[in-house]
């Protein structure tokens, strides 16, 4: 049903720590691997070894350069996958009921056998979380590894999304963001987790923890004042040279 549920019993989702992410793309690879071999149509690639490879992925890592006026510039690696929005616009536009948001845990899923591949849900998503599979021609998206998190055949430590299990930096956290006492909710509270594009009104469940403030450059070295090498105003020979060159 493409009407959104009034409320969901849980709000399962991810918390992504932009301070810790090192941009290794391991989560991308493990996501592609798990979701190709398990639930749903495999995530295909076209022309994988040719000049213009293209394929479907459920998780992609961007990198952004932030250069604030009063602080040192820094680079932020930015993983992005489905945010399992409470007010998911991708669900309500679906004409067939293939897209739905689960009442029990809030996961947004696609029933691939009902998907006509019209692409409208991908149009409605501001985050680029949905991609049409180039071979299967059905819409693919993050399932929050619904086939891992409830899978009692797996060891307990593996009952988390593949990306979370794989991340070597511990930058990805999984839990119930509807429970204010859950580890992830506390983390979001402590670190000031944010919503992406809040003005779009999607109410994303996934949260992003901003990078911690970096040290200021002028605090870094106590010897710096003694190493002041160049005078603002040249003197002596250089003063003469400066004036002469200006005069020419």
């Amino acid at each position: 049903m493409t009407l959104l549920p009034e409320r969901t019993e849980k709000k399962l989702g991810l918390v992504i720590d932009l301070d810790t992410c090192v941009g290794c793309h391991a989560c991308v690879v493990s996501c592609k691997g798990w979701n190709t071999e398990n639930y749903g149509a495999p995530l295909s690639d076209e022309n994988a070894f040719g000049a213009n490879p293209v394929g479907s992925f459920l998780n992609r890592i961007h990198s952004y350069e932030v250069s604030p006026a009063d602080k040192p510039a820094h680079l932020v690696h930015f993983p992005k996958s489905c945010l399992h929005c409470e007010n998911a616009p991708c669900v309500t536009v679906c004409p067939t009921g293939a897209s739905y948001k689960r009442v029990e845990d809030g996961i947004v899923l696609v029933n691939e056998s009902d998907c006509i591949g019209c692409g409208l849900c991908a149009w409605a998503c501001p985050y680029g979380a949905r991609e049409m599979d180039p071979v299967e021609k059905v819409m693919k998206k993050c399932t929050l590894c619904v086939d891992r998190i409830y899978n009692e055949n797996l060891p307990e430590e593996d009952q988390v999304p593949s990306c979370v299990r794989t991340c070597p930096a511990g930058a990805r956290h999984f839990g119930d963001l509807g429970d204010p006492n859950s580890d992830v909710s506390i983390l979001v509270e402590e670190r000031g987790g944010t919503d992406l594009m809040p003005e779009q009104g999607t109410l994303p469940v996934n949260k992003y923890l901003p990078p911690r403030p970096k040290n200021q450059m002028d605090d870094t070295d106590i010897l710096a004042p003694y190493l002041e090498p160049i005078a603002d105003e040249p003197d002596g020979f250089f003063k003469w040279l400066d004036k002469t060159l200006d005069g020419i």
Partner: protein
Amino acid sequence: MHPAPSVIIFTTLSGLGFGLLAFLCLGYPSAGGIVGFIFFAIGFGLAIGGLLSSTFHLGHPERAIKAFSQWKSSWLSREAWLSLFALTLSGIYALGRIFFDIDLTIIGFLSAFFCIATVFATSMIYAQLKTVPRWNSRITPITFLIFSIAGGALLAGQISMALPLLALSGVIQIVSWISGDKAFAKSGTNLATATRLTSNSNEIRSFESPHTGTNYLLQEFAYKVGRKHGAKLRIIGIILAFGMPIIFLSIPFSHLMALLAVISHIVGIFVIRWLFFAQAEHVVGLYYGKR
């Protein structure tokens, strides 16, 4: 947005076809027999041809019937139902008109209503998308509706109605371009809100894409080809869709002039619809440092 030919053909032809059917079902012109048959054949040909064309961009057209199920929330599903009502009712009206020379007035009114409602539903598929600020405006359904009504009047040979409607369509289109050009900036979505890494979007830029090649999102949403000719194409579109037909219809009537007016109008609407997609920018492009 990627201007897929199937969707451009669909919105252009169906809009015209449903506009024509609306006029025919209201009795403009109230021709029966062979003339009525030809008019209705053109109307159904355009409307159904357009709808069939829209199925070509589906990944799984064989499941298209499922699109009738979610009318409670989805404009695409509502469009499916409304077009079914419109085609069925105007089919009944056409049978009465052509073969029995009777005027089923109430069915005619209902057909016209559903024809226009179908065009409205089509326009709302685009207008509902907050992700495409240029479309996310009341002016989107207004342009779709006025184009359909003006084109319908033109095809139905209602010259006295077509002339002011074509002129009005041109004006509304120009207004929609002026407001649409500002829509993205006005929406308030930028790379700063997209990443929340800073409050000033001038302090952040995309350093590296997630991959060296392209992907579905870039192909579908970050279409840029031809945008540089946007200004020229707008002028060409306005002249072909509205200017030339007004001139052709203003000189003494002949079937040749009417045909030229119709052809010019259809080509012009194709150009304008192409721009509607090609110039629309999806917010996801921001993540890739593109618009």
